[in-house]
């Protein structure tokens, strides 16, 4: 049931996402300073939002798991982390593609960039830890500990990179202050954010139902009913 709902939501979101790009390419004006490269912004920023949303959900559910010890919370947290990592990969690949023509460099140690890279690596670590533990009960507990620790770490990383940059300002390639978006672009961006959030929900439901099936299968193997 969850899988079917997830599938429907995902399909709707994917169609809408294609629609967003038709709108972005055909009906949204080209940005004066950044040129056509700016079009990637409509996938980059919403993906970043969805990835951070996914990681925040994992962190909060991890904390709740440690308090309530409900297996369902762990399964959703894991599914959310996985979807978040996928979205973060899109964010981290579209970023440099935009950065090269606009900043003149593929990568810059800008504060936001560095924090998101670390958050991405943290949750890759979360997945690696899950993969290395076989007992589902231990896996849930350890992953929840990792999730809570990650949630606490994020503000520290942010302060660190921010101070580092303010103490040593980057000389040439600072990100320019983004001008406030004209209405047409803002509508495209906001609808893309909405679609990406929907896509997140769809993926999450599908991953969740897959994880439930996998858990049932694992238990069957443990009980010797395979």
């Amino acid at each position, binding site marked *: 049931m969850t899988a079917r709902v997830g599938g429907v939501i995902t399909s709707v979101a994917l169609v809408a996402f294609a629609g967003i790009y038709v709108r972005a390419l055909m009906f949204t004006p080209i940005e004066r300073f950044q040129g056509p490269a700016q079009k990637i912004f409509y996938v980059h920023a919403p993906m970043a939002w969805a990835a951070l949303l996914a990681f925040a959900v994992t962190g909060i559910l991890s904390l709740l798991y440690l308090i309530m010890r409900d297996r369902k919370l762990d399964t959703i947290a894991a599914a959310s982390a996985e979807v978040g990592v996928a979205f973060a990969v899109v964010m981290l690949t579209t970023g440099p593609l935009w950065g090269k023509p606009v900043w003149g460099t593929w990568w810059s140690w800008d504060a936001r960039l560095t924090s998101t890279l670390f958050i991405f690596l943290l949750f890759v670590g979360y997945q690696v*830890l899950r993969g290395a533990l076989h007992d589902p009960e231990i896996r849930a507990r350890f992953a929840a500990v990792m999730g809570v620790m990650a949630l606490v770490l994020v503000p*520290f990383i942010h302060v660190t990179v921010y101070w580092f940059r303010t103490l040593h300002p980057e000389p040439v390639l600072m990100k320019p202050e983004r001008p406030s978006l004209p209405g047409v672009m803002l509508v495209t961006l906001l609808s893309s954010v909405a679609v990406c959030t929907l896509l997140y929900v769809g993926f999450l439901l599908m991953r969740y139902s897959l994880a439930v099936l996998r858990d049932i299968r694992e238990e069957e193997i443990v009980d010797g009913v395979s």
Partner: protein
Amino acid sequence: MSSAATLQAIIAIAGKDLLVERRTKTAFLSSIVFAILVLTILYFARDKTAVGDLDLAPGALWVTFTFAGMLGLNRAFVLERENRAMDGVRLTPATPTAIFLGKVVGNLVFVGTVELVSLPVFILFYDVPIWRELPLLMLVIALATAGFVSVGTLFAAMVVRTRFSEVMLPVLMLPFLFPPVVAAVQLTRGILALRPLSEYSGWLSLLAGFVIIFFTFSLFLFEAILEE
């Protein structure tokens, strides 16, 4: 458990770990040799005409300390894995808090000793004018070490249950070392350059905040790691 009994348990656990270490000395000697090797390699891993000793020194010191420290952290729980010794520790009346604190104290002594031995080597190799500011540098080293040992003890207790725990520990831990190491490097840079403390006191508060928050979280979360 009364606080006197808790203290006794902490001392007993730290004492037993350090006794095992004192009898074999394997981990200790390898960490020292490792630290000296890293300091040497980092000294040569640059263009000496472009990067001066003083520019390189703070980063080199902290990369060495954290990597050498990480070698030691794994040891504390790998010891308990053999013959399921951890079950024995859990059967004692010691609370999870006491076990965690015992392990942290043991690790602090271990990592602290490695640092105390490699610090003179660092001063010698990098020829840094450090003597006048030594107490301040010691404070920074103590804070950063306390921070990464608390987090490291928690993670070491987790990864010991996985295969490839030697690889897993750095992967999980390095993001958590980022704030304390960057702060420690900035502080060390200021101290070595004999800058007034007010210029970098922000980093000192960040480091202290990290230690307090992560020590507290590690202490409370350790209970969830230990239960069976």
